[in-house]
Every structure is written in structure tokens, then in C-alpha cells.
């Protein structure tokens, strides 16, 4: 078993390195995109091997649902825009910057590896107070305990980063003439309609399930939000969401719902405790569910809007179909 695992892991590790290298160095734009998507698959298997199903879930939802579609759309925009056959012009400046970049990345990787090896060697030395806090916590999933309670401040900042990223994209959209990434084909191909009709309830159900199960098993707001975001991507790709030039009020509310509620909760906590973000005694579960739910909504809305590269979206009236 151990030799088998070793071969399995070696193949995974070498495969990841090779795929990463080819994705960067491959001459064709499209081939690079496909290699990067395969990289996402192998990465998910790697997280699974490392015993991190939470990360494997996030990797699956983001690489299969968001990054792949985003890169293919960018590929389309590049091909349509330049009118070039398949190559983006290889600017000499990028070639000159390649070696310093490789050096910096190798150095950073070496430092990280050294740190990680030391952490792994001291694994037994998890502070006892932390271990006790996780085991006695009302929520059962240690990852959720970390994200929402013990390191809640980090999570609050993380969702703020996501919101800031969207604002950055908005500013870019205002200032530059970016090509429409995803203008759908005039006609939807056959069989996509039945697929969407079936995928919508299944995806909604699975996202809610992942959100709910996140309290005690791998899952949670990020995974569920990414899955809902992927559903939004599907709707955008097939033209069921139409781009708008300004963000409707409802979408704005959706964008700030998660970070806003989390921030309000952080301030409210000062009334029952001396620390911001402290959970009220006895109501930890309910408060965590409420915060996770709002985070899920905001993550889904942000990811869909980021993908569509438009300020806003609205659902197309599906009553009349134009064949």
C-alpha cells in the first residue's frame, strides 16, 4: 500500500509540474487553456490525496465551473479581436522578464517548502488551547470553525477582497474598451435547453446541501457560492442573462449582503462581548448559518458578475424564443 501510494503521489506531483510548465510554455493559446483546465483536474485529485476535501471541492467548483469558461471566453475574445490566426504577438519584453520571474518564483517556492517541511515536522505541536477550542466548538466541521469563528477576521477581509476585485473590474470597464467576452451565439445549440432545465434544480439543490452540510462536514459558503456562481456562468454563456450597462439595485444589495452582514455582526458583537466577531453564547450555530448564507449569496453574485465582465445582468424574458 505504501509503495503504491508513493507511486501515485509521485505521478501526481510530476504530472502537476509538467502540466504547469506546458500550460505556460505551449505555443498555442487554445492548447494552453486546455492544459490549464487539466491542471485543475489533477490539482483536485492532489487535494483529495492530501486529505483536504474542502479544498478539493473548492478547486472542482472553481476550475471546472469558472476558470475554464473564463479562459475559453478570453480565448474567443482574443481570436475575434486581433483577427490573428492563433497567436498573440510574443512581445520581447515578456521574454526578457521571463528569467527574473522564474528566479523569483523558484526562490519563493524554496522558502515556502522549507517553512512547510518544518511545520509538518512539528505537526504534533498544535497549541492545546486551539485543539480544545476546535473540539468543544458547537460546530463540527473544524474548517468552518476556523473560517467563521476562530479566524473570522480573516474571512471578513477575504470577502472584502472579493468585493474590491469586483470594484476594480468595474473601474476597468468604465475606463477601457474591453471586448465583450461572452456575447453568445445568435442561436442556442440544440440540447443545451434540456441540459439547463435539468442542471438548474440539481445545482441549486447541491449548492444548498453543501452550504448546510458545511456545518459538520466538508462544504460551506465558499464551495456553495462557487457552485451557484458556476450556474450563473452557465446562464451567461447561453445568453439567459443579458449584460446591462449599470448594476441594478438588487444586484448591488447581493454584492454587499455578505460582507455587510458580517461587518454589522462584528460591531454588534461588542454589545454582548468585549471582542468584535464574538458569537453570542448559545446561538453560535444560528448566527453562523445566517452569516454563511449571506456570504454564499454575495460570493455567487460577485463571481457571476466578474465572469460576465459587465456591470450588471438581467434575466432575459424567456417567453418568446427566437429560433
Amino acid at each position, binding site marked *: *500500500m505504501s509503495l*503504491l*501510494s508513493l*507511486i*501515485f503521489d509521485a*505521478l*501526481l506531483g510530476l*504530472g502537476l509540474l509538467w502540466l504547469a510548465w506546458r500550460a505556460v510554455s505551449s*505555443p*498555442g493559446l*487554445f*492548447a494552453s487553456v*486546455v*492544459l490549464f*483546465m*487539466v491542471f485543475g*483536474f*489533477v490539482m*483536485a*485529485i492532489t487535494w*483529495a490525496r492530501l*486529505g483536504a*476535501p*474542502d479544498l*478539493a*471541492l473548492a478547486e*472542482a*467548483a472553481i476550475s*471546472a*465551473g469558472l476558470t*475554464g*469558461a473564463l479562459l*475559453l*471566453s478570453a*480565448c*474567443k475574445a482574443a*481570436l*475575434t479581436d486581433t483577427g490573428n*490566426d*492563433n497567436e498573440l504577438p510574443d512581445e520581447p519584453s515578456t521574454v526578457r522578464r521571463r528569467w527574473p520571474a522564474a528566479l523569483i518564483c523558484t526562490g519563493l517556492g524554496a522558502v515556502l517548502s522549507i517553512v512547510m517541511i518544518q511545520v509538518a515536522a512539528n505537526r504534533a505541536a498544535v497549541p492545546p488551547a486551539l485543539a480544545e477550542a476546535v473540539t468543544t466548538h458547537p460546530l463540527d466541521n473544524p474548517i468552518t470553525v476556523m473560517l467563521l469563528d476562530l479566524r473570522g477576521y480573516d474571512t471578513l477581509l477575504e470577502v472584502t477582497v472579493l468585493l474590491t476585485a469586483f470594484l476594480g473590474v468595474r473601474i476597468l470597464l468604465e475606463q477601457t474598451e474591453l471586448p465583450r467576452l461572452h456575447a*453568445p*451565439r445568435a442561436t442556442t*445549440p440544440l440540447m*443545451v435547453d434540456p*441540459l439547463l432545465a435539468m*442542471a438548474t434544480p*440539481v*445545482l441549486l439543490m*447541491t449548492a444548498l446541501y*453543501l452550504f448546510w452540510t458545511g456545518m459538520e*462536514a*466538508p*462544504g460551506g459558503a465558499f*464551495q456553495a457560492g462557487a*457552485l451557484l456562481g*458556476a450556474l450563473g*456562468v*452557465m446562464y451567461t*454563456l*447561453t445568453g439567459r442573462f443579458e449584460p446591462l450597462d449599470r448594476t441594478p439595485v438588487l444586484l448591488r444589495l447581493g454584492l454587499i449582503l455578505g460582507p455587510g452582514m458580517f461587518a454589522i455582526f462584528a460591531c454588534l458583537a461588542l454589545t454582548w462581548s468585549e471582542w468584535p466577531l464574538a458569537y453570542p453564547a448559545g446561538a453560535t450555530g444560528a448566527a453562523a448559518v445566517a452569516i454563511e448564507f449571506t456570504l454564499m449569496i454575495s460570493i455567487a453574485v460577485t463571481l457571476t458578475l466578474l465572469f460576465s465582465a459587465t456591470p450588471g445582468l438581467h434575466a432575459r424574458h424567456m417567453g418568446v424564443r427566437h429560433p
Partner: protein
Amino acid sequence: MNSFLMSAGLFLLINLAVGLLRLYRGPGPADRIQALLLFGTTTVAVLLLLAYAEALPALVHVALVFVMLAAIASIAFVQLPHRTGKD
């Protein structure tokens, strides 16, 4: 049983590595995206095998997420113009 599941997973992983050859050769984009289809199915199978080999039932959910989103790549792919490089 666990080492059998593990070796089945290893076999599929090697299968995936061999399939990369098609991705490499092309010639057209349709051939490359097919290789992606193969890798998607193989990844799902490997994840299911790992879920039982390592007793991590959550990995079945990971496989579930992958199959649910498998069609997105194809939907995005068919929007590409036809002169996508024959490289």
C-alpha cells in the same frame, strides 16, 4: 481491498497521462477538447476510488461537483470561432 482501489486509481491516472498525447498532438481544437472530456471522466472515477480507498466520503461530493459542471467547458468551447489555431 484498499490497495486494490488504490491500484485501480493508479491505473486510471496512468491512462490519463497517456491520453495527454492526444492533447499534445491535436490536430484541431475539437480533438483537444475531447481529451479534456476523457480527463474529466477519469478524474471523477479516480475521486470515487479515492473516496473509498481513504474512507473520505466527502470526495464523492467532489466527484458530484465535477460531473455537474462538466458540460460548461463544452458549452464555452462551441462558442469559439472556427479558425481557432491548428497548431
